[in-house]
């Protein structure tokens, strides 16, 4: 049986860990609220823009827009796994890695080359360690997901796509369901599919366009890409905080359990010592009586 002192030290250290996990849980919970609000607040724009793009996409020639360009035999594919800068978020990052690895495995034969351009420090470190070719590193997200960071990412990806450096772009990110569940999804970002969009377009009433449909759509498409990236970034952020909150809650509970068991062991050890001492005293007294 470990000494009383060793057990006491162990309990103290677990208590300290518990303090930290509890604090992290509270911080994540507070931030999660804000992140969730941001996801909700960004929806009206995304929904509206999608509807308008959809209604226009059906009535113009998709050949005119580089973002619609489809390649019959795509050669180069780019994956954008969205990860966090910080760890201790449960399975948040590892599930993104798993999904990315699965994609690399499953589509090895379909493309000549599959590149990875991770977002987030954890992703950069992971793929560098694994030796997966990192195509480009999307940095400058320190300010958190907002229009500026979405713009930067969308602009870079659109540039790679329109210059023909890559033929397809996929986003891999955690979609926020609740603090307990996040599901990793693979979402095609580019090329935009004119057919798919047009299918969603509501029949447009008599509408006048200024300056004209073509130019209007030309201005809206980059914003549409940007809006999709922003949504993914926001979902990913909310998921990260949700995952961290859940993970830290579990850690705190586990710590409480360990403390409980250790306290029991400690009390037993102390009782054992007292009993032994008592025995020694009584037997000593007995022998004196002789």
């Amino acid at each position, binding site marked *: 049986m470990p000494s009383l002192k060793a057990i006491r030290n162990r309990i103290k250290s677990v208590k300290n860990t518990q303090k930290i996990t509890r604090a992290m849980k509270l911080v994540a919970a507070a931030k999660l609220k804000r992140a969730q609000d941001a996801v909700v*607040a960004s929806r009206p*724009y995304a929904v*509206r823009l999608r509807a308008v793009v959809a209604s226009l996409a059906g009535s113009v020639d998709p050949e005119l827009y580089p973002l619609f360009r489809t390649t019959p035999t795509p050669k180069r594919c780019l994956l954008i796994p969205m990860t966090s800068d910080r760890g201790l978020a449960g399975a948040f990052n590892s599930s993104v890695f798993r999904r990315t690895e699965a994609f690399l495995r499953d589509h090895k034969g379909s493309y000549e080359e599959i590149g990875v351009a991770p977002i987030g420090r954890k992703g950069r470190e992971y793929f560098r360690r694994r030796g997966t070719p990192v195509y480009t590193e999307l940095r400058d997200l320190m300010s958190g997901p907002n*229009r500026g960071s979405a713009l930067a990412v969308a602009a870079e990806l659109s540039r790679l796509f329109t210059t023909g450096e890559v033929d397809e772009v996929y986003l891999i990110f955690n979609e926020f369901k609740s603090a307990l569940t996040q599901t990793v999804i693979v979402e095609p970002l580019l090329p935009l599919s004119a057919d798919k969009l047009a299918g969603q377009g509501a029949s447009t*009433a008599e509408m*006048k*366009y*200024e300056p004209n449909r073509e*130019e209007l759509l030309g201005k809206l498409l980059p*914003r549409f890409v940007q809006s999709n990236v922003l949504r993914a970034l926001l979902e990913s952020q909310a998921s990260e905080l949700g995952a961290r909150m859940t993970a830290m809650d579990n850690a705190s509970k586990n710590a409480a359990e360990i403390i409980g068991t250790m306290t029991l062991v400690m009390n037993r050890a102390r009782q054992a010592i007292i009993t032994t001492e008592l025995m020694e005293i009584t037997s000593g007294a007995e022998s004196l009586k002789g």
Partner: protein
Amino acid sequence: MSLVTLDIITPERAIFHGQVTEVILPGELGQMGILVGHSNLMTLIRAGELIAKSADGERRFAVASGFAEVTASSVVVLVDSGEGVSDIDVERARRALAAAESRSLDVAAASSAELEAHQEELARARNRIAIFERSSRA
């Protein structure tokens, strides 16, 4: 009096929703006033001042470029950014303008998309400053 429902929405959040009597939009082809019963229209918007007039006065917004969808009873404005005049952070806009202007020196080699983004940035900052100054004079 019949009213128009005005929504001003940015990628990050909705900044205005309400009933107004008239909306003045900074359209791509010039300013336009929208009253109830306007014919259906989809128009590009450039950085400028959007004015929403209602019974209790008018509210002014600085908006960046985007577009607006007008129907007989509603105006939905989707812009890259925007805020009410009282929310303009003029110091930030001045910094953004200074940063954008100092960068303009080395754009000879830039692509057209980059140039366009840069022009946008300049227009957005100038617009905010102009609207702020106009409103503080008034």
